[in-house]
């Protein structure tokens, strides 16, 4: 490779893996997982081929919105250490290519989901792509410190789409799955922002610690965790939950609240003294927290599938 091609991307020079990287494969993994759980937890059976094809469409749609996000955010990606190696700032893919990949895959994924599943799930996928690419990336991310709060909705839609693929409708269960991810996103990202503050400052992204300060961020992490806990436990009392969900969710949320309280109790001096140990630990646990909640939905779905459910279990919603 010539030196020039290292700094300036030429159309047609990228490897296939660079285009895959545009789709944010790590985010796609989470989308596949939560959409699949939404689909499996739904009370209506779906043919495995249609289920697989639908989940693929949801994953590609999410990836397409990631490509549009990278196209729009190429300037700030170039100054943040976390994102500087992405295909566009690294000079492996041009912005126009990323835009084309994003648009083509968006249209294709929505159209195919419409054909494979139903109009509702395709409409939700289209709205999710629009929400992430336009509402979050183009508008909120650079405009308000509450960007993560509202932008988190984009990541919360996949289980709802999975549920809609199976049932063709929306009930309390997918709404609570949505609420779980939506309310989890702010404390998760603000914990990251506390120890990656410099990155966002350099990029002029108005993250809460940059605009309102770390004290306000610590307060907000605790407040959102307090709102999250009941929303995360409530699914136990729906048709998708049960006693296993309740027991483990109680433990997970107690641990989450304990971590949020530990962050709230500290100040910057204490955090810098131990290298943000508590914040990093909370951030790491928050990933396991969300993963385990969706594993619990899966466990309950399997138990229900084998008829292993308490008939007297209170289903409130």
């Amino acid at each position: 490779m010539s030196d020039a091609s290292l700094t300036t991307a030429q159309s047609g020079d990228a490897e296939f893996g660079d285009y895959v990287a545009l789709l944010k494969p790590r985010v796609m993994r989470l989308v596949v997982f939560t959409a699949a759980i939404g689909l499996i937890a739904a009370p209506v059976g779906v043919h495995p081929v249609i289920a697989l094809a639908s989940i693929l469409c949801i994953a590609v749609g999410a990836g397409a919105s990631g490509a549009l996000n990278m196209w729009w955010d190429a300037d700030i990606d170039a100054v943040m250490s976390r994102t500087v190696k992405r295909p566009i700032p690294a000079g492996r893919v041009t912005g126009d290519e990323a835009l084309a990949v994003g648009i083509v895959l968006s249209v294709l994924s929505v159209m195919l989901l419409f054909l494979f599943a139903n109009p509702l799930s395709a409409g939700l996928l289209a709205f999710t792509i629009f929400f992430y690419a336009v509402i979050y990336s183009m508008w909120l991310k650079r405009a308000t410190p509450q960007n993560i709060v509202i932008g988190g909705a984009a990541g919360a839609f996949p289980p709802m789409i999975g549920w809609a693929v199976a049932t063709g409708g929306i009930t309390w269960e997918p709404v609570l799955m949505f609420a779980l991810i939506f309310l989890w996103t702010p404390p998760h990202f603000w914990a990251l922002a506390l120890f990656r503050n410099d990155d966002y400052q350099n990029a002029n992204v108005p993250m809460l610690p940059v605009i309102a300060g770390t004290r306000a961020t610590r307060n907000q992490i605790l407040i959102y965790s307090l709102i999250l806990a009941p929303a995360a436990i409530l699914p136990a009392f729906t048709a998708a939950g049960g006693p296993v969900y309740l027991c483990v969710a109680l433990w997970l949320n107690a641990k989450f609240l304990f971590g949020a309280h530990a962050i709230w109790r500290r100040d910057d001096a204490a955090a810098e003294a131990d290298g943000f140990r508590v914040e990093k630990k909370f951030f790491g646990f928050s990933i396991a927290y969300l993963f385990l909640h969706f594993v619990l939905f899966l466990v309950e779905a399997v138990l229900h599938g084998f008829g292993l459910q308490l008939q007297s279990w209170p289903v409130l919603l």
Partner: protein
Amino acid sequence: MSDPRKPGLGADSHEIYTRRKGRNLAMLACLGGVVLMIFAVTIVKLSAGIDMRGFDHTFETVPGADQ
């Protein structure tokens, strides 16, 4: 072909062609996968007796429905 008067050009173009070939093959595999997926879903839907036709602006009467 490598040009001996321009050191590095041959190696560069070889690398670019290799990269493009790899990318094209991966694209071929993806498109093949999409075709197979559409075919598989079509077979599943037809096997389940799902009407695959779009609305063509004419209403059909079901034989025996008016009896």
